[in-house]
């Protein structure tokens, strides 16, 4: 093999490796790139829990918020339920809110009986899930103590991913 083809081969391998590495890096950080609310003040949203209490996301300022959109018919939402419950327990300084949407009242109450939330959860009574750009469930938004959306994640969370995002909004 000539020196020239060796050089071409080496350049190709280096460039290819940089490309693959950066794509793999992108994959790890993919969810940071989602909807138009990132970096902006969280849109107004309030939910009503099964006991009738209203929880307003904008009233939680001063505390980081994990806002999770879910529905009773959404399988992956059940999957990540345990992860979120553990996260809420381990981070008492972070407010967890479960916004139920595209659901029926009976679906919601049946779900709460089977898999009760350990943090406030219920149907949206003020604001919309569209204002957060939610296109598929589950979707989770991470809001810092200033009320700014720092990150979002679509799809079921695992413990590592949740910790990664919690670190971003930790005060």
């Amino acid at each position, binding site marked *: 093999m000539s020196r020239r083809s060796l050089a071409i081969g080496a350049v190709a391998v280096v460039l290819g490796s940089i490309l*693959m590495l950066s794509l*793999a890096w*992108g994959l790890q950080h*993919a969810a940071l790139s989602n909807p138009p609310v990132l970096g902006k003040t969280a849109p107004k949203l309030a939910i009503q829990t099964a006991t009738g209490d209203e929880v307003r996301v904008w009233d939680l300022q001063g505390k980081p918020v994990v806002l999770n959109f879910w529905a*009773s018919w959404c399988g992956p939402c*059940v999957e990540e339920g345990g992860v979120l419950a553990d996260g809420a327990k381990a981070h008492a300084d972070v407010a967890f809110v479960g916004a139920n949407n595209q659901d029926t009242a009976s*679906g919601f109450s049946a779900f709460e009986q089977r898999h009760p939330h350990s943090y406030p959860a219920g149907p949206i009574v003020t604001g*919309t*899930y569209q204002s957060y750009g939610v296109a598929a469930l589950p979707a989770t938004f991470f809001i810092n103590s200033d009320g700014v959306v720092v990150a979002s994640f679509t799809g079921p969370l695992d413990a590592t991913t949740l910790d990664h995002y919690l670190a971003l909004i930790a005060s």
Partner: protein
Amino acid sequence: MPVALRDPALHELILGFLGAGALLAGLVLGGFSALLSFWAGWRNSAVFVQIGRRAFYAATAMTVLAAIVLETALLSHDFSLAYVAEHTDLSTPIALVAAAFYGGQEGSLLYWTLILGLLGSASLIASTALGGRVAAYAAGILASILAFFLFVLAVVASPFDLLSVTPPDGLGLNPILRDGGMLIHPPVVLAGFAAFAIPFAFASAALLAGRSDAEWIRHTRRFALVAWSLQSTGLLLGMWWAYHVLGWGGYWGWDPVENVALMPWLATTAYLHSSQVQEKRGRLRAWNLGLVMLAFLLVVFGTFIVRSGVVPSVHTFAISAIGPWFLGFLFACMVFSAVLLATRARAGASVARRPADPVSREGAFVLQNVLLVGVVAVVFWGTVLPLVSGMLGLERVVGAPYYERAAGPLLAALLALLAVGPLLPWRRAGLPTLRALRWPAGTAAVVLVVLAVAGVRSPAVLLGIPLAAAAAATVFTEYGRALLSKPRSVLVRRRRYGAYLAHLGMLVVAVGIAASQGGQQEKDVTLAPGEQVTVAGYTLTYTGSGQRQFGDHDELIAAMRFGDRTLEPSRAVYAGLGGQALTHVAITTTPLADVYVVLAGMSEDGRASFRVFVNPLVTWIWAGGAVIILGVVLGNVGERAMDAELARRRIPITLPA
């Protein structure tokens, strides 16, 4: 069991299971076909070639079955399937429910696979002339790609996943997708993407079998042309749709997803030209193989970008579970192509000869290829920069100015080459050629003076339009020469004259792009009823507002009078989607420009805010696109029949080497 079938719940479950089963069966058949076909190619066994090919057809049949099942589930509102519940609802119009088939991640992957199977089968049926080994390897590669997609569909992102509880209604389709454009743009672009796999399979097969001759070029070119035409149409439809729906006054935003659709198109444009050098002069074999492979690698790269959500874009799909799989697939394809090119391309390389004169048709094609690959490199760098810099902790993103500055000069050089290249003879250009250049050069000079006198100062217009005019003069010179001396030659050498027609279409597109980029004017105004606004000499009068109700949305309309026409820009509010609002643009076309009105807001007292654009010559882009496709179709449909006819009458259709 007929009794059980009448139970609606079970009936729905059956659709889900049938679809998932078909995907699994397709996966097994695809894997089987890949193994048998590679074995057949290696051992040169005619029997196994047949079996491998039939297994591919069977895998395709399973994909067709899965597609039918998904469409049935969508049309019957079977919300027990997660895919149906997430992408449709009861209020979505039925045509859009059908289109939701390719509206989401899983369904669009199934659509991709379906087109790959169908076009792959067609290419295998047509490949018998290539000889057993090339056809066998091509079948093996196509089957491997098909099996990968079926694997992702069956295991990672199945459109047939069932919900534990069947919801009463679905989430509905994103309002931005609730448009006629949804019915045509995505299926064409996705089909284009899928089609690039076929030239890739045959290029790799030719290398594996050690055969990269003229017959290979003919076969590959035909399918590259299919992919190229689909992609051209898809890109234009996407531009048209963005222009009519998004309401920002433009049609191309250098969004990563637009970029990844453009890059394979550019690489294939280069291949379609350089393949002629191989056909006519036997040169550039390895380069041609490389371009075909590059186009497919760019498709896989693009699929990864679009579907994993790694870069911010308006198009990305929501859930990214398939990202790692596509990254692995991209890696495998890159290594496979690189190893194949490094070890096998030399064997088929042309014997060393005296290099061609730089000022010749060959030279023009090589320069055109270098420029196009240069544009690919610019676009590629802009697309991956957020990732490469992000990995290093820098977070750089480039916007339209980068692309315009970096790709603009290359595109201008390509326009100039369109004026000069077709006039250059093969091998070496002499004095007569230089004389022929007086028409395009003169035309460019005249157009430049006219534009300057008319007061045009935009560099894009002053550069783009004279060069396009020069290239048009070249096309007309060529047509004129043929029609005056041998009128029949336009029919006999239809590929050539069809290509010139496509060039002409490209120039019309270029003029439209230069004029609308360089000459766009916009104005933001707030008007009370009866008040007027004038933009670039076009006067519009706001006449008043009104409400209108549709099946799935309400519209707030503000009417504008423009001459004897009425423009009705509006804001649509989708009640079923929690009050999500969407702008509906009003566009009217005059011979010189589009008047494009967006309703920005409306106050209590009846005053309305508008953003008014005047976009010169945008319609030229759509018209030019139609001419390109017409040129490709006229130049190539029935080409084979024509070849046979000419062979019978012993008329040579290619220059002697």
